[in-house]
């Protein structure tokens, strides 16, 4: 089995950004990509939101429709660590079935281009590594009409190349290797709750004490969100106590729709650039706990300053 299309001869992940300004531009890129995949009998996948998926479905030649699988874009892109796991399993399944190449066009849902973009930028960087063991050609679609310029700048830094409506494949001049992008620690926007005093501050607590405080500040978030945050706080505080440097300071804020917990220790934070996005096999580094944390919160942000390393966790609606 061989690679086809623009990825012919490429080994591993062929990761392209598509920055489009109209539905026509999107279709001009996506339709040949999908038809080419179906013609080559490659697993061909669409992971777009409902409106864009409908647009593509209506435009596809009828003969191609049965060869394209449509995933719900929203569920694939709920949380970065979950998306990586789901995609890796999907890809491994296709490879096991003998696929020579898999084609996927996906789009990160609009809300993730806002408050939680930071961890999606980390996602886009990390998958250059996380999907590189698979013969994958993917198009990551970004609508330039709604995408902030800072996000577009990260898109170019995290995608080695881009595909344009006129069919050009261009290398990205600002592309940064994932380890370099992920080690740069861009500043994280402050949640407005953090501008007020924390409801609770704990210094060097036990993990049990840190868990208990989550329940004390819970405004009554729906479903299991609070319990998932309890798991995350337990893991992060355990990591800070074991792998960080004292003092470990845990601060809690709550609004009507969210709980924010920040855990600061005096250390430098995880040295693994993929920390949290990929499960670490080495249990001695706390990497599994950080991965579980990324699977259990609606937003996880890393930051580093002269005071040390801070992990901020959000349950409910990230701001």
């Amino acid at each position, binding site marked *: 089995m061989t690679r086809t299309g623009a990825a012919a001869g490429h080994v591993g992940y062929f990761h392209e950004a598509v920055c489009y300004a109209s539905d026509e531009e999107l279709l001009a890129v996506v339709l040949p990509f999908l038809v080419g995949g179906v013609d080559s009998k490659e697993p061909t996948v669409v992971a777009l939101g409902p409106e864009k998926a409908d647009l593509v479905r209506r435009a596809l030649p009828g003969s191609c429709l049965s060869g394209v699988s449509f995933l719900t874009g929203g569920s694939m892109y709920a949380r970065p660590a979950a998306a990586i796991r789901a995609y890796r399993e999907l890809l491994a399944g296709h490879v096991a079935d003998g696929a020579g190449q898999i084609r996927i066009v996906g789009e990160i849902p609009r809300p993730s281009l806002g408050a939680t973009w930071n961890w999606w930028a980390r996602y886009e960087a990390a998958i250059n590594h996380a999907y590189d063991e698979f013969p994958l050609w993917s198009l990551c679609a970004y609508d330039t009409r709604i995408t902030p310029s800072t996000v577009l700048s990260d898109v170019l830094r995290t995608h080695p190349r881009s595909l344009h409506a006129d069919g050009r494949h261009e290398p990205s001049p600002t592309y940064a290797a994932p380890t370099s992008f992920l080690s740069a620690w861009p500043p994280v926007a402050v949640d407005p709750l953090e501008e007020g005093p924390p409801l609770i501050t704990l210094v060097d607590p036990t*993990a049990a004490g840190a*868990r208990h405080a989550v329940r004390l500040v819970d405004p009554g978030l729906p479903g299991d969100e609070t*319990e*998932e945050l*309890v798991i995350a706080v337990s*893991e992060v505080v355990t990591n800070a106590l074991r792998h960080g440097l004292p003092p470990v300071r845990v601060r809690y804020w709550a609004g009507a729709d969210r709980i924010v917990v920040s855990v600061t220790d005096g250390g430098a934070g995880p040295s693994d650039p993929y920390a949290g996005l990929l499960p670490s096999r080495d249990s001695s580094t706390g990497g*599994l*706990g950080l991965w*579980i944390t990324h699977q259990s919160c609606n937003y996880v942000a890393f930051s580093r300053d002269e005071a040390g390393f801070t992990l901020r966790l959000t349950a409910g609606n990230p701001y």
Partner: protein
Amino acid sequence: MQSVPLTATAYAVGMHAAQAQAARPTAGRHLCWAYADLDEFVGRARGFLAEGRAAGAAVRLVGDDLPDIDGVAPEPVSDVYGVVDPAATVAYWADALSSALAAGHTGLRVVGEVTPLVRSAAQVAAFAAYEHRIDRLMARNPLSGLCGYDRRVVDPGALSDLACLHEVHNLPDVSFRLHAVVGSGDLAISGELDVTGTAALARVLDQVSPAVIDGELVVDAGSLDFVDHRSLLQLASYARGRGATAVLRTPMPAAARLVELLRVPGLRVEAR
């Protein structure tokens, strides 16, 4: 008083006591009290025995340095326990319970100051196995015990491991309990299991060697308030070592979610 020879198996004796339980379905309680002040422990023991006597139970007091408590004279530890043989010692108490019931008591309450029995690592291991076995007898029968440990003497690590084998203990740093329940599997884990308990969990599982039935090691976790991934991995690893699957029965959605995330062989969560 010597330990009775083990003429019947512990299970048969247990069943005998269980028949008595049918008439008086009061499960016993199993408490651990670590103390640094003997007078404080004697106060606890006095209350425990008085409560039992008020409920019509026979009472016994075992300990080498204890005073008489409200007319109950202490029996020497060596008379009752000898060299601890978990099965034989459980059979001894099952027999004592039967005698108490036959004499018209509602049950049997025992205070044991057992510090002399846990001085060496080998003694601790044997006594831990005994603590769980007697816990199983107490969960099914009107036999209650208050185990006293002198924290000035007993190794702190050993004390923690022994404490968590009681349904109730007074060690604030020991956050979980592994104890008997009546039901399938007979084993419960309660409290909170996080990184502070993972190593202890491994040790006590080895010591108590819980039953594997039809390839499953069933754990009633209805009173488990938190469990982290380390403890789940530890439980799964123990079960695999026994050629079994651990079945964690818990209504906690978070536990089911962690197991789904980790996809650990040897572990399943049942939501109840």
